[in-house]
């Protein structure tokens, strides 16, 4: 027989694991991401609501969660087990929207605190709240748990009436799942009309996966067909490998169904006796707890790697996105360098100015045209890179994350930023030229602006601006010209690198903001292996 003893190391390992799970994020919309997110939430719920509190305080009462499809009669069953109406039953579906926890008055302190289900706000004034809840839209976010006490229940046992698992109200489904995660005993309620429905069977299979202590209740069985349906259901269970699960059958009685009345005590007596026995017999109680707890621990073995691989997929997708950006910008940068070498800046308007310089255009005009042309070249490179990135990202599902692709208004500012950078380059270049000219010991000093224009032409014009270099040498001497060209060239490279780098960073910023790292994967696995060692 398995024993359930509390060891601090195990608890430490478990809390560490819990923190890792809580820290895992799946921001990129990959195919597996919604599932990973749901998995993470469920795992977290199970750790927070069940595993950690249970291992910490094994003496706490057993919690039996009554779950099942809408209209299966869960609330009626709970009411009948307790012996009075604690949970609203009715004909409209879904009936139960607020979960109700029923326990013995002396067990009340176990549940009034935030020991289990810390996400749910406790409510003690049931009647008002039930009425208000559906009406006030503001309260929908605040999830509540009603706690009722009844001394008809044995000590050490608490019942929880959960919302339906297949409700149209999506919030109900999530809440029901969370509540099931907190259970020591899963009580699955189904009916004669529903026992072959697909949805409850998924829940049953999940219970089997987690090796939770499971009970099934076949509710609302017309008395003529009790044996028939019961046998069918048993066969289905056996087929699913759940043949040893205790089964209870509750017949359909006039008062049971649609009026929301209580079933006679005899109808639910066997279930009640079974539950009471589990709660009061120390051996049985221990077994129930240990089975569910260790089942949950065991299920971590398969669920944690799943989470880890989802985290790894996230990181891989982020890497792919980054690589696409880097590749696009790198290749555009190479192209840009090539075009610069070839003198692509000295084309169009700039070329016309250069040809008519100095007769028909001034040095200032030439410089203006060159700077404008350089800005156009840079902008073209950046837009082309962005276009490539868009193209590559269109094939990536991960690029659909909000904020990654919708950046329409920034195009204008890219033009603006590049214009600023290029103008700054021009100003520094003019300063260099002035310095050079001032250092010259010539009687007739050449015009600094002309010198700057010639340097710019020589730098940007490539082969076709050879004469600019010659003219420069004539004006400020070969050494000075060489020096000035070197300085200007370095300056140009710096500014281009910086401009492109800035744009690339700007493009990657939203992706970086998502904070997708390789660490979570390793951390999850590491936390799991620590836990395995502690067991």
């Amino acid at each position, binding site marked *: 027989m398995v024993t359930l003893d509390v060891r601090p190391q195990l608890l430490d390992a478990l809390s560490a694991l819990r923190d890792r799970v809580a820290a895992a994020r799946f921001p990129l919309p990959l195919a597996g991401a919604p599932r990973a997110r749901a998995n993470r939430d469920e795992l977290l719920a199970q750790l927070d609501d069940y595993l950690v509190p249970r291992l910490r305080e094994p003496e706490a009462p057993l919690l039996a969660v009554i779950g099942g499809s809408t209209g299966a009669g869960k609330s009626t069953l709970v009411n009948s087990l307790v012996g009075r109406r604690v949970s609203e039953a009715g004909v409209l579906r879904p009936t139960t929207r607020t979960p109700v926890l029923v326990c013995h008055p002396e067990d009340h302190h176990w549940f009034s605190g935030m020991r289990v289900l810390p996400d749910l706000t406790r409510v003690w004034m049931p009647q008002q709240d039930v009425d208000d809840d559906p009406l006030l839209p503001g309260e929908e976010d605040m999830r509540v748990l009603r706690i009722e006490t009844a001394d008809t229940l044995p000590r050490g046992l608490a019942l929880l009436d959960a919302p339906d698992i297949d409700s149209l109200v999506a919030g109900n489904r999530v809440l029901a799942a969370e509540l099931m995660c907190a259970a020591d005993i899963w009580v699955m309620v189904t009916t004669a009309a529903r026992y072959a429905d697909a*949805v409850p069977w998924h829940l049953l299979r999940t219970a089997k996966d987690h090796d939770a202590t499971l009970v099934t209740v076949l509710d609302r069985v017309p008395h003529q067909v009790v044996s028939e349906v019961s046998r*069918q259901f048993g066969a289905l269970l056996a*087929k699913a490998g759940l043949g040893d699960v205790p*089964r209870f059958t509750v017949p359909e009685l006039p008062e049971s169904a649609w009026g929301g009345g209580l079933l006679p005590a005899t109808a639910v007596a066997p279930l009640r006796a079974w539950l009471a026995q589990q709660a009061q017999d120390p051996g049985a109680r221990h077994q129930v707890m240990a089975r569910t707890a260790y089942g949950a621990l065991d299920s971590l073995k398969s669920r944690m790697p799943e989470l880890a691989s989802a985290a790894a997929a996230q990181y891989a997708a982020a890497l792919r996105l980054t690589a696409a950006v880097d590749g696009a910008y790198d290749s555009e940068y190479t192209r840009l360098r090539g075009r610069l070498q070839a003198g692509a800046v000295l084309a169009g308007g*700039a070329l016309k100015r250069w040809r*008519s310089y*100095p007769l028909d255009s001034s040095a200032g005009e030439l410089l203006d045209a060159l700077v404008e042309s350089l800005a156009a070249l840079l902008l*073209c490179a950046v837009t082309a890179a962005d276009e490539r990135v868009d193209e590559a990202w269109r094939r990536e599902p991960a690029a659909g994350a909000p904020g990654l692709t919708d950046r329409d208004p920034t195009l204008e500012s890219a033009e603006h930023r590049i214009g600023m950078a290029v103008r700054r380059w021009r100003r520094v270049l003019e300063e260099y030229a002035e310095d050079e000219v001032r250092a010259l010991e010539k009687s007739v000093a050449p015009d600094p602006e002309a010198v700057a224009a010639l340097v710019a032409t020589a730098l940007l014009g490539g082969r076709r601006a050879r004469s600019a270099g010659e003219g420069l040498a*004539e004006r400020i001497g070969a050494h000075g010209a060489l020096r000035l060209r070197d300085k200007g060239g370095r300056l140009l490279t710096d500014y281009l690198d910086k401009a492109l780098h800035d744009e690339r960073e700007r493009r990657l910023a939203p992706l970086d903001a998502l904070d997708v790292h390789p660490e979570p994967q390793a951390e999850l696995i590491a936390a799991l292996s620590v836990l395995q060692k502690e067991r």
Partner: protein
Amino acid sequence: MTAVTAVTDHTDHADQPGDDDARKKDPGGEIVRKERSGREAGHKEKGDSGRGAREATEAGSGGGTGSGSGSADSVGSADAVGSADAPGGWDDGLIARRVSATAEGQARPVQETVMDNRPPAVAPLAYDGPLRSRLDALRELVGLSRTRLDSRTLAEAGQVLDEAAARRRLSGQHTVVAIAGATGSGKSQLFNALAGVAISETGVRRPTTAAPIACSWSDGAAGLIDRLGIPGRLRRRPLQSAEAEAQLRGLVLVDLPDHDSAAVQHREHVDRILALVDAVIWVVDPEKYADAVLHERYLRPMAGHAEVTFVVLNQVDRLPRDAADQVLDDLRRLLDEDGIALGEYGEPGATVLALSALTGDGIGELREVLGHFVAERGAAARRISADVDAAAVRLWPVYANRRQAGLSEEARDEFADRLADAVGATAAGEAAERAWRRNANRACGTPWLRLWRWYQDRREPATGRLSVRAYDDEEATARQRVEQAVRTVAEQASDGLPAPWAQAVREAAVRGSQGLCEALDELAVRAGTPVGRPPRPGWWPAAVLAQAAMTVLQVVGGLWLLAQIIGLMSPNLGVPVLLMVIGIVGGPGVEWACRLAANGPARRYGAEAERRLREAASGCGRARVLDPVAGELLRYREVREQFLRVSGVTGGTGVTGVTGVTGVTGVGASAG
């Protein structure tokens, strides 16, 4: 009162090695193969009147006892189970079903169907004018879009067309109505109640009906039933009675398996047949009417089919009277939330009824409604029409533009400007203007000034003039500017277009821009360089003459003074000084006047040079880029018109029928 039957049987559950496999399979599909010995007591109240028919059903199991299990159909289910759940997303091993899994079903805009003014179809099945034209438009739309959209997007439209064509070939006298619902809702019971015979097996075993069964009230429906893929052994006739026959004449009723049990093959049957029938009766019961599967998987996606939908709340006998009304109201509310128009107060929409197939309560009403419905014979056309609507809504994102699409005049001008920038038209114009003025000044300037300028030129290194030669092989056009111009204009033209068409426009622009730079280079050489010397205005010789005269005056005055100083002539200061002064003042004066006079022609000359280059460039750009783009936009407009026709909105009269669709006016012929 029945005693409690608490069965706590611990059967010998051997640890199966293949547990994991068993888990993946659906138990429901396999259990039906189990031989059942007992005969269901259930709610079956009809006698053995349909016995002969049932024997045919049970040919597979060979039992004439009425306990057959339809094994022939369910054997295959075990195999098909593993993967079939994937599209629904309910078999992912999670406890909770998240909203996101079904969100796409809800986000779809609901479209109003346009069919009130359509006369009911007459036999043989012929679609009325509007529907026919919509189908034609859809066919054309699919044909036009094949090159632009992937086949997956068009698959649904193609299927609608196929089904419409297939249905059209078949009987128009009949209306095929399917009875669908969850397991245990009483579909088969309702089927039997309508037929008046226990045709379809009912029982407590879940799921009961494994294969669809058809029942035809009149002859000639064989083709229709063939289309549903229902084999001959599953076809029945109702109880022969003249009255019932007259009422439901032309009805073909199909009893479907459930859609929500663990037997996946049943769901496949349902999905397949629901796409083919003319109308659907959804049977729900008080226990299951709010099931998420029903609403999210079926009712919401089929909200547009409200007119061919009946929703029937069965088993009201299990409810107290007022509770039944309450549940019915709640059901109506849920249907309303699903977006299904309810046919109340004479409006077209779904019919919602409460009945009990067990007690026969409300069956008469359903029969009556069904009788009217069948007698109208409009269901098939309405269904196809609703299908077309649904396809149009589905295709909406790939055809509808968010705002007015097309190339505005400003965008064209901007493109031309950018191209002119790329070839340097402005700079060239200015250079030409200045060169002209320079020439004029040189010609009209005083000789002394020219002398000084010549000296200046000699002193300064003549950088510019060296480069003037030999640049025919250069890339005179700024490549980056052309690239940017094409990108911008493509962006502007495709703005607001749905993605595939925007892509096509962009591609057209990029394709057109190949070779544009080279063409512009060539053009700049041809149009940019002035032919020969710049032309001179008519007053030119006069100006030169005047300038020469001034110089002559200066020289004459100077010589005269010189002669006086030497003593060759009598001293007379007045006249020579006057002459010299006139010459000295007049020379610059003439030059100044010439410069003023040259301003106009110079500017004209420069503007002419700029205009020539600019026009050549923009002509080149229009031919290579703008025209293909406009052509692509035109093609989009054609497709859009077809789409509007499919949506049921006639192209010319307005576009109010489909929400958010705006007219296309700016798509257009190139500005000549």
